[in-house]
């Protein structure tokens, strides 16, 4: 049984013009990529980025400001690009190819290797890079610039789309700011001030930033004096102190929907694809296996990497190898025991999986201790593990699949299935956080708008129609489920830990005795 998919409506002339402008901007980039020698690179680069942003701005204004404020999801499942139609697949393939080239064949983009000057696309970005940091562009600079442009331009679009919703506007302004300032401008300026400090986006914390504690970085931080040490200490505090505290107070949304760059792109440029995430129970199962496997992998890998460089220079590293392993093991054991003692009943069946994950890490630590006399862990060189992680998780998963597949898997495939940071924050959110999505008594009509809009594939309706709060580790607190609910059923809230998880059988509004009977069993 299926309904025919009607054709999407024609777009207005103004939108056609906007598309023309935007694609002209893109075309300049394509010309540069094809090694067409463009004079006045600075001018052409400005023109290109300006046209792209201008195109998006004009398009968005015509799309949203010509209509009354409200939910704007008309035709999302009809338009080819946002319903896995031909255009969706074309875009998916183009993005995927772009990521493959970016990660593995940067010379195709014109990266000058061995001191040669840049050509092609990367050379086009040299003037901007010179302006900011005083050095020539790299493929990462090009990527960073385009990424920032995308977040800013599509962030503007998103803010118009939700111009009746302050929560959406504020968090979008926030991700735009963090991307622009912390991921893009500040690191470039830092380089100008102190070129010994490695590129450091301080909001990009371990384990999302899997190279945070790589030897070369730590060395550079330590060697570059106070500022480097400050960064290093901030990096450690971020994951062990700041982030647990903020997650306790506000849920993981403070990071995933307000700060994070991956989340930022997903929420802005990725917004038109949010409904494509799978809501099936099977997808949820896969999600839990995958994301926690990545987390275990990332913990073991990082431990191994740090382990291999510890101890060979007692001057630089106060820690020695064995103390470090003991410390990691001890810390994880502490966390594990605390959870098993206090939160076992909340975990339910998941407790078993938690135990498996914990056991895996501990076994790896022991293995490191016994096999890792030199550079080997598990008979695998730690460096090998590190590069495998970088390749499979850092590049293929987070980039190629995570972003390239936006039009196929939805905009948060990486955040949902792969991001180890999301796993850590999610775990805290589930166990120790005031955050929940409250459902409004008996008002749900099971329409499914919330589930449909959930980019994390949470079946929000399954909870709402039972009058049960949504307390899920994967929820990034984007607030879109709440926005689209036509009956005002959902509210993102920080409240007391008591009664945060409240399964109900009979909803508010029915006979009070029956509610008593069924809900307080």
């Amino acid at each position, binding site marked *: 049984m299926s309904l025919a998919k009607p054709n999407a409506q024609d777009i207005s002339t103004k939108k056609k013009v906007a598309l023309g402008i935007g694609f002209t901007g893109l075309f300049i980039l394509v010309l540069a990529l094809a090694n067409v020698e463009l004079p006045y690179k600075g001018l052409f680069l400005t023109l290109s980025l300006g046209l792209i942003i201008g195109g998006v701005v004009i398009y968005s204004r015509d799309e949203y400001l010509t209509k009354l404020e409200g939910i704007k999801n008309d035709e999302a499942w009809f338009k080819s690009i946002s319903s896995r139609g031909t255009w969706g697949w074309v875009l998916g393939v183009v993005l995927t190819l772009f990521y493959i080239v970016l990660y593995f064949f940067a010379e195709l983009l014109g990266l000058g290797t061995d001191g040669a000057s840049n050509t092609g696309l990367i050379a086009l970005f040299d003037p901007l890079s010179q302006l900011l940091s005083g050095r020539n562009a790299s493929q990462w600079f090009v990527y960073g610039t385009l990424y920032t442009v995308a977040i800013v331009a599509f962030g503007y679009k998103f803010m118009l789309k939700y111009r009746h919703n302050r929560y959406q506007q504020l968090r979008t302004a926030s991700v735009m700011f963090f991307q622009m300032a912390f991921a893009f401008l500040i690191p470039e300026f830092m380089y100008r001030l102190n070129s010994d400090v490695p590129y450091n986006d301080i909001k990009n914390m371990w384990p999302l930033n899997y190279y945070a504690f790589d030897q070369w970085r730590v060395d550079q931080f330590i060697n570059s004096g106070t500022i480097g040490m400050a960064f290093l200490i901030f990096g450690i505090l971020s994951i062990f102190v700041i982030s647990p505290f903020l997650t306790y107070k506000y849920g993981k949304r403070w990071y995933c929907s307000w700060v994070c760059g991956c989340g930022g792109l997903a929420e802005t440029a990725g917004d038109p694809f949010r409904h494509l995430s799978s809501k099936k129970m099977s997808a949820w199962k896969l999600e839990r296996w995958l994301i926690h496997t990545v987390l275990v992998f990332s913990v073991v890998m990082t431990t191994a990497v740090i382990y291999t460089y510890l101890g060979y220079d007692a001057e630089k590293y106060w820690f020695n190898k064995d103390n470090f392993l003991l410390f990691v093991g001890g810390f994880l054991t502490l966390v594990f025991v605390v959870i098993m003692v206090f939160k076992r009943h909340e975990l339910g069946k998941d407790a078993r999986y938690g135990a498996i994950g914990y056991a895996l890490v501990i076994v790896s630590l022991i293995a490191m201790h016994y096999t890792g006399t030199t550079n080997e862990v598990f008979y695998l060189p730690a460096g090998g593990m590190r590069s495998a992680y970088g390749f499979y998780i850092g590049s293929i998963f987070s980039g190629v699949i995570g972003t390239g597949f936006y039009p196929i898997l939805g905009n948060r495939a990486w955040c949902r299935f792969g991001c180890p940071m999301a796993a850590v924050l999610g775990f805290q959110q589930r166990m120790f956080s005031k955050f929940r999505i409250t459902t409004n008594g008996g008002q749900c009509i099971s329409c499914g708008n919330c589930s449909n809009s959930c980019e994390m594939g949470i079946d929000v309706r399954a909870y709402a129609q039972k009058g049960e709060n949504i307390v899920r580790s994967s929820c990034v607190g984007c607030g879109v489920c709440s926005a689209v609910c036509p009956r005002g059923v959902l509210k993102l809230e920080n409240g007391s830990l008591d009664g945060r998880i409240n399964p109900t*059988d009979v909803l508010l509004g029915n006979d009070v005795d029956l509610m008593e009977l069924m809900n307080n069993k």
Partner: protein
Amino acid sequence: MKNIVIIGNGIAGVTAARHIRKLSDNKITIISAETDHFFSRTALMYVYMGHMKYEHTKPYEDYFWKKNRIDLKRAYIKQVLTDDKTLVTSEGEKIAYDSLIIATGSKPNKFGWPGQDLKGVQGLYSYQDLEKLEANAPDKETCNRAVIVGGGLIGIEMAEMLRSRNIPVTFLVREDSFWNGVLPAGESGLINKHILDHHIDLRLGTNLKEIISDENGRAKAVVITETGEELPCNVVGLTAGVSPNIDFLKESGIELGRGVKVNRFLETNIKDVYAIGDCAEQHEPIGMRRPIEAVWYTGRMMGETLAQTICGNKIEYKPGHWFNSAKFLDIEYQTYGWVFSERSKSEQEAHFHWMHPDEDKCITVAYDKDSKLFLGINTFGIRMRHENFDKWLTEKRDVDYVIKHLPEANFDPEFYKQFENQILAAYNNQLQTA
């Protein structure tokens, strides 16, 4: 182990089934002529508008039914033989039951208008209606204009649907202001304006006289009673309310009124036959409720209740405080307790009304003129917390208390502007001048 058969896979029937399964091991069969699986009728509009696909309107994944041992059968029941405890399908198949739950919902009203059965004339209730609308009005080239007859909740949804495809819509409303049998004047006025803002040609105080056919038996125009004006159109939406879908029960011996007559235990006059949801009609209205309540929530509550009775814990249907909600295009509406329109309210009911000067937001609080007892609230464009009002109604709070504590009940998303202080100021103001 009883053999329980449920006719109708809507919210009422499905809730009953789910709860019976929770409480017992009985055999459960749900029969429906409409779709293989339960879907949310309230979401039909979003499918046409492209927000969702049909599959997303299903509240449970398809594996759910087998896992919970609830058998699904696609068939139309044309006869209920209560003496033999048997159902007969339109194919002639016989299905036996020990207990029968009738949860057959509603059908759109037709008031005998000339031309009401022409092609292009349709209601909006079922999945099949959605398919029809997709065929009748796929785009504005095929459908140059649609006329909607009947200014209720489904009518305004249908208007919104058609507008999402840029189809010009004329909306005929019999009342002189939208839904003013239910809404107080200020609120009804707000919605009138909002409808016009959406470029819907709203005709108040206007009745349909007839629908004119073209040479192929397809609607080509409607005629308006008051003016005799003839409006060319390709689609006519009949949305003048719904009534219980019970014609197939006429010969069954089950007592019928407008709906299937039930007592407070949701029992019909025949043993082991029950009725719930839109199609059930109470002998005596419960409190201020109507004898037939065609809303989602009551269907669900009846299902929750009846499951107890069927599983041996006989309890009355005793719904709590009334609540409801809807969305008029972009304006959300919630109501808790009772707020009546000027047309139907009692002498004792007084209203405090607040309206935002330019945003589409307003509230009406109903209270008893003498005792100041809080009776109910309507909110437009502001979300409120069900729990608070339910509690305040139970505690029999007065209107002063409710207005003062309004901020606690606010359910709008974080960072939204809050209007409770303005509301309180307006309230104090009005009381002083009054």
